[in-house]
């Protein structure tokens, strides 16, 4: 089971307990049938679904029509957001997105989510049954342990979009979740090769490497799942180390729960210093080697 699924499983178990219900872990691919945290339902559309949000949404919709779950939780990844939205529209259910701290309130589910670039936390409510995507990085990962497998044949699925080829495949990492130290790189880095400085610091601190959105999206220097913030993952390390990151609200939204935030930035007026516990006004190309030297000594 991947790390996102294990977080969603934790959120699901909590809800199932408060509903005095049963938790069902649903997979749409045969290769995943052996995974799960509790009872596993394999929704079989007779075809390799292969991360195709179209097919996953349709398969889940058919299974849900039979099983009638109170809530369907999906990880708030890009695939997950598409799946959840399409599923909700097919089933005409309310859909909460990118929520955390999910809780039962009467016959509704309430969750928190970051809005307006993270300046505001909104409480949103959906009547049961509903669909929700769970913000990545906000729940602890459940350990695996399968108790039973059930197979639901849902018939052949309609593919609206053809997959021509896969250009890149990336291994999913769990680096950022659970990490007690995160060193995060921003546009203060001039080349991809220079990221080695951030990696070295992460290694010296026994931590993981993360980044701001432009590094993964605009430059493609790091995988999308390593970007932190509103559109990426939420992190909660003891130490968050921001290198060459300006500290725009959308980024800061993902680091609010860090115990200590440290920042290195050449610009004394960078907003990151407003949200940091400790900051160095300086050039990361000089400061990081100096820190590494001190840590070595």
């Amino acid at each position, binding site marked *: 089971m991947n790390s996102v699924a294990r977080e969603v499983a934790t959120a699901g178990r909590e809800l199932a307990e408060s509903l005095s219900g049963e938790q069902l872990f649903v997979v749409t691919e045969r290769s995943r049938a052996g995974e799960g945290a509790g009872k596993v339902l394999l929704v079989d559309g007779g075809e390799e679904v292969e991360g195709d949000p179209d097919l996953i949404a349709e398969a889940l919709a058919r299974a849900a029509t039979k099983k009638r779950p109170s809530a369907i939780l999906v990880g708030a990844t890009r695939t997950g*957001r598409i799946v959840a939205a399409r599923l909700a529209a097919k089933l005409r259910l309310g859909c909460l997105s990118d929520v955390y701290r999910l809780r039962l309130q009467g016959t509704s589910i309430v969750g928190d989510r970051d809005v307006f670039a993270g300046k505001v*936390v*909104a409480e949103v*409510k959906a009547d049961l049954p509903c669909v929700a995507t769970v913000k990545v990085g906000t729940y602890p990962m459940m350990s695996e342990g399968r108790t039973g497998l059930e197979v639901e044949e849902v018939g052949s699925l309609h593919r609206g979009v053809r997959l021509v080829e896969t250009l890149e495949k990336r291994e999913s990492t769990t680096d950022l979740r659970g990490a007690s130290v995160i060193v995060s790189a921003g546009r203060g880095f001039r080349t991809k090769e220079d990221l080695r400085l951030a990696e070295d610091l992460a290694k010296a*601190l026994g931590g993981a490497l993360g980044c701001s959105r432009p590094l993964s999206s605009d430059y493609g220097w790091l995988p999308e799942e390593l970007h932190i913030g509103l559109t990426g993952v939420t992190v909660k390390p003891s130490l968050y180390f921001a290198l060459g990151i300006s500290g725009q609200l959308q980024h800061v939204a993902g680091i609010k729960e860090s115990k200590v935030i440290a920042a290195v930035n050449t610009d004394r007026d960078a907003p990151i210093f407003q949200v940091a516990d400790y900051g160095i006004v300086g050039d990361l190309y000089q400061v990081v080697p100096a820190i590494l030297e001190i840590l070595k000594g």
Partner: protein
Amino acid sequence: MELRVNASGTPDLSGAPSKMSTFDKNAVEESIRLKESSGGSVTIITVGRSDAKKTVKEALAMGGDRGYLVVVVAEPDPHDSLTTAYLLARAIERAGPFDLVLCAEGSSDIYAGQVGPMLSEWLALPFLGYVRKVEIKDRVIRCEQTLEESVRVLEAELPALVSVVSEINEPRYPTLLQIMQASKKPIEEVGSELLIDGRAPPRLVTTVGMTAHAMSRKRVIFEGSPEATSRKLVEALRSEGVLKR
């Protein structure tokens, strides 16, 4: 939408001027580029209060040909994406035949990423989400979709619906002349009540609370030589107990 926060810490949404979401500029830009390369025309459609007309005009100045504004009297719940998508679907149908619908991966206000895929369900269109590159040839759209775990090349027949990511292009800034010319472009307005029919989804999602997020940090800033500042920082982090060694 811009936001003010009251002294009490509750966000004040009333009177906040609406403006175009950052990523929606990428969607508008891409539609104009497609028009420039393949012909056709671009209709800008939005659901909002009457002051959302400003947003429509902004997109017309970038190169859109006509606007279509679904005016909602009372602000629809920003988290009720299913209803917003439904209103957009009905508006798109009323606006006339089309080949392609473009939206952004997520809005600046709430970044739910829900309206696009929901819209594709209401319009029964193939959905190509999180797209960083679009090509159209012989009524077939080919896109590069960027997901966390993979980058995939997808194809579908038109009409289709695409949601773009921010790296797809660099949105243009309209010139003063374009801004002036945009005010002459037609904008049709329709009240949302005219689009709600028997097939509209029930309103199932509501916002029940909003709290401004406050974060208090120590904000200790070190200035000086790299060596001196680094030493102070490492000491501070040690005394916080967040360094393993």
